[in-house]
């Protein structure tokens, strides 16, 4: 699976303004609502589900990266977005570090395979330190889109 298979281009946020875990999740779900991928009426339910999932264990997987996610019946296919917080957000990460890079995923309940393959793609690409560093330094949505596209074209993975 590639980034272009699940990242909604117009929901990418290069400068997240929220400075705590719940607000940053809310900001990214709002981005998906604004891009038309998620209905406004499902916004609150999805935010709550993602936060509930975080309570089971942080999705801050280290290297300043978090992958907040949930299953939700309102989506027919996996939808996701990417956000950068330049100041970093305290996410109770596994390594204790603040999170700058967030990949938020919402998947249909009956498609665990797609969710796994999205996680696979994200983690595989982020093992590359240059990709991770460039992404965190991105200042615009266009920069992020370009990096994701390059990653999809195997420019980073050795």
């Amino acid at each position, binding site marked *: 699976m590639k980034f272009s298979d699940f990242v909604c281009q117009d929901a990418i946020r290069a400068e997240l303004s929220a400075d705590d875990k719940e607000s940053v999740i809310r900001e990214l779900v709002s981005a998906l609502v604004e891009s038309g991928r998620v209905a406004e009426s499902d916004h609150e339910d999805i935010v709550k589900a993602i936060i509930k999932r975080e309570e089971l264990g942080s999705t801050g997987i280290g290297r300043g990266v978090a992958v907040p996610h949930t299953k939700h019946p309102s989506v027919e296919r996996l939808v996701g977005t990417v956000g950068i917080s330049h100041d970093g957000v305290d996410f109770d990460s596994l390594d204790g570090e603040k999170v700058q890079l967030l990949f938020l995923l919402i998947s249909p309940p009956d498609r*665990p395979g797609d969710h796994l393959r999205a996680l*696979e793609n994200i983690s595989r690409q982020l093992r590359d330190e240059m990709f991770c560093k460039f992404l965190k330094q991105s200042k615009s949505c266009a920069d992020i889109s370009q990096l994701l596209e390059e990653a999809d074209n195997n420019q980073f993975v050795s």
Partner: protein
Amino acid sequence: MKSTLKPVLAMETLNVSKKVMVQNAQGLHARPADLFVKTANRYSSSIEVTKGSETVDGKSILNILTLAAEQGTELEIHAIGDDANEALAALTELFEQGFE
């Protein structure tokens, strides 16, 4: 003159492996992967996990997640070190219990 050298123990580095099956319906997603890595890091042995032709570091969640191991996937866990048997037993048990 009396020797002050301590007797050198014959330290044998254990090298063990076992095949396991991913049983839980959701596969090895973020939470089980986190549990696996936390368990692996309790031991000094090095841990590797193999799926098909790919072998990754079992102590790194980024590495475990790249396996995208779905339900029914066969994996091989490989432990090398003094506490390899204990590590392998603990990690195997996670799979047997479906990461519950």
